């Protein structure tokens, strides 16, 4: 009898712990989300919104700018995320070596870029790659190019520089996650493999990666999520240009809301498109992750 009232009391407390945080998310995240969904069913300019059903969603498929921005973001995703995560894995496994000297120093320097704000990172790289920036000066000094190249006004290179900036900024973050994960792996497994004659790369691919699967999955989903919602870097380095070669979906939403004739209903539909893509990709990644 006393036990069940105690259990009841404990249960109550259990919920008390959880409710404030949950409430915040419901009010400040889910509610606006639902409100945005309502908005996406309306169309019109400014505050003149009328009900339009799913028309906005149908419009998405005819919207060349939207489709281009999706293409851009998927390009970033396909190139940047694998490179960054692979690099982070390699770095983490190197840093995990007990015989490595200056470990603390390396680790600090690698994580350092995460201390910058995205705006700062964007500005730094924009300055580097400007016409009279360091990149051109160094490349000319090394005789790799003969005259200054306008990196940011070239559709291909503009994308490349954005990818470079993101990689610079986030690799350290993922490295720390992998490093932590690696430290849970027993040294003896590696020892046994070494005695069996396995090379470092064999060990890497057949021991490290499989054992780190859950962490790799986590970082992949986080990176996918972040890349699909990319805004700060694109806005501050190229502003979507040249033309719309680097436009991200979030930036398109921003333009639809604040730069053109405001179409908040349609902008809301575009943002739901991001949500759907993130959800689908995350599901696929989880399925793949759980299968192997």
């Amino acid at each position, binding site marked *: 009898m006393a036990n069940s009232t105690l259990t009841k009391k404990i249960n109550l407390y259990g919920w008390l712990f959880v409710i404030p945080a949950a409430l915040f998310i419901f009010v400040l995240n889910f509610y606006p989300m639902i409100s945005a969904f309502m908005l996406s069913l309306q169309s019109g300019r400014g*505050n003149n919104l009328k009900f339009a059903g799913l028309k906005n969603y149908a419009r998405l498929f005819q919207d060349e700018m939207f489709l281009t921005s999706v293409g851009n973001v998927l390009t970033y995703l396909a190139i940047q995320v694998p490179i960054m995560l692979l690099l982070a894995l390699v770095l983490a496994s190197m840093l995990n070596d007990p015989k490595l000297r200056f470990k603390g120093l390396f680790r600090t320097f690698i994580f350092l870029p995460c201390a910058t704000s995205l705006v700062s990172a964007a500005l730094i790289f924009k300055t580097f790659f400007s*016409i009279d920036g360091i990149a051109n000066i160094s490349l000319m000094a090394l005789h790799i190019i003969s005259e200054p190249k306008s990196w940011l*006004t070239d559709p291909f290179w503009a994308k490349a520089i954005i990818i470079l900036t993101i990689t610079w900024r986030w690799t350290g973050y993922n490295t720390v996650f992998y490093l932590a994960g690696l430290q849970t792996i027993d040294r003896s497994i590696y020892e046994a493999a070494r005695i069996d004659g396995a090379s470092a790369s064999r060990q890497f691919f057949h021991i490290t990666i499989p054992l780190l699967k859950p962490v790799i999955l986590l970082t992949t989903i986080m990176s996918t999520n972040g890349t699909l919602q990319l805004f700060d870097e694109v806005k501050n380095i190229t502003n979507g240009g040249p033309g719309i070669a680097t436009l991200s979906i979030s930036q398109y939403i921003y333009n639809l809301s604040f730069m053109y*004739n405001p179409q*908040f209903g349609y902008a809301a539909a575009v943002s739901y498109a991001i949500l759907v893509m993130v959800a689908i990709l995350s599901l696929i990644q989880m399925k793949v992750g759980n299968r192997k």
Partner: protein
Amino acid sequence: MKKTICVAMVLLLLTSSLVFAAGKAETAPAVTDPNAPVTLTVWCWDPMFNIYAMNEAGKIYKADHPNVTVEVVETPWADLQQKLITSLSANATSNLPDIILMQDNAIQKNVVNYPEAYVALNGKIDLSQFAQFKVDVGTVDGKNYGVPFDNGATGTFLRSDIIEKAGLKVSDFTDITWERFIELGKIVKQKTGVAMISTVANEPDFPMLMLQSAGTWMFDENGKAYIKDNTVLKEALKITKEMVESGVCVLVQDWNAYIATLNNGTVASTINGCWIVGSISAEPSQSGKWAVTNTPRFANIASSVNYSSQGGSGWMVMANSKHPDVAIDFLAKTFGGSVELYETILPTSGAIATWLPAAKSPVYSKPIEYFGGQKIYEDLVGYAGKVPNVKYGIYNYEARDAIARALSEVMQGANIDSALATAQKNVEFLMSE
């Protein structure tokens, strides 16, 4: 246990009181005493031009109305638009200023989308003395919303010393065509090594300027997108591309870099609205070395003239203002009524009046030392009178972006017709609901 709950609550209260206490204090309700201190907040950009002009206007008004202080908050145009729309869309206008500066090509869009946000000025300010085309730009459905400010009349601003080195004179650049301009630019580059002109890459400034010089725009009289069949636009893109490819025009990546090319002597000229005078004049070592003449026109387009407009803006009074009458009176007495204001701001900033009484002032016929003694303001006012009038419409920004993209694609080698067809499709898409 109780104790720990208490501690937790206190912590939470402390945190939240810190949080809420740091918020802004409630502003006192507006008083009706005419002599009570009034602060008019103004959002605008460009310290050398608009901000300078507004501060001077504030000084002049304060002389007769010591209780009124004009406070300018420097707000870049892109930020201003975004803040404005964010606040208006959420019906949260308490933080908006009393007066804003609005680019001419955005006035229609903003008024049509948020008509209650702005104060209609009919009958409150005498706008009859302003150049008609500027008043039209700020009129929607017969109501006036903008107090016209500066003229965007364009000119070709030349480094007379550099073109002289190439064996050319200012008159060689007068009343010419774009094709001739490119030829001359090649000569200058060849003889002096200096590029003729610069522009921000992926910005459609040149095509816009060229369109207006031919009296057309990206929309026809019915408001439909007029892009892919627009022969003037095609020609404009062709010429811009040729300018860049021939080396006559240097592309820079943003506005700062553009201003730097002027101040550092990287280019021998610029073609832009007359408000560029303020930025040109910021470099003391170039004093005496500049000159102005009119804008090139198209060779093959009959309606094209040697005059155009770029930019230009007007002041608008916000409906959320606590002192709309003071704001209106301020604008009426300064930008709409003070010859002294225009005389003050003209020499240093190049702000050319669209208020006709001011344009008759002798200040306009003073020789300007920075421009080698040329009476540039007389000339520029003359140009302003010949600028073809166009209706910008409300989808200007969508169209601008689309043309910018088309231009960038054409620079990369795309076919002009297909680039414009894409642009038309995009604009029509954004125009549809």
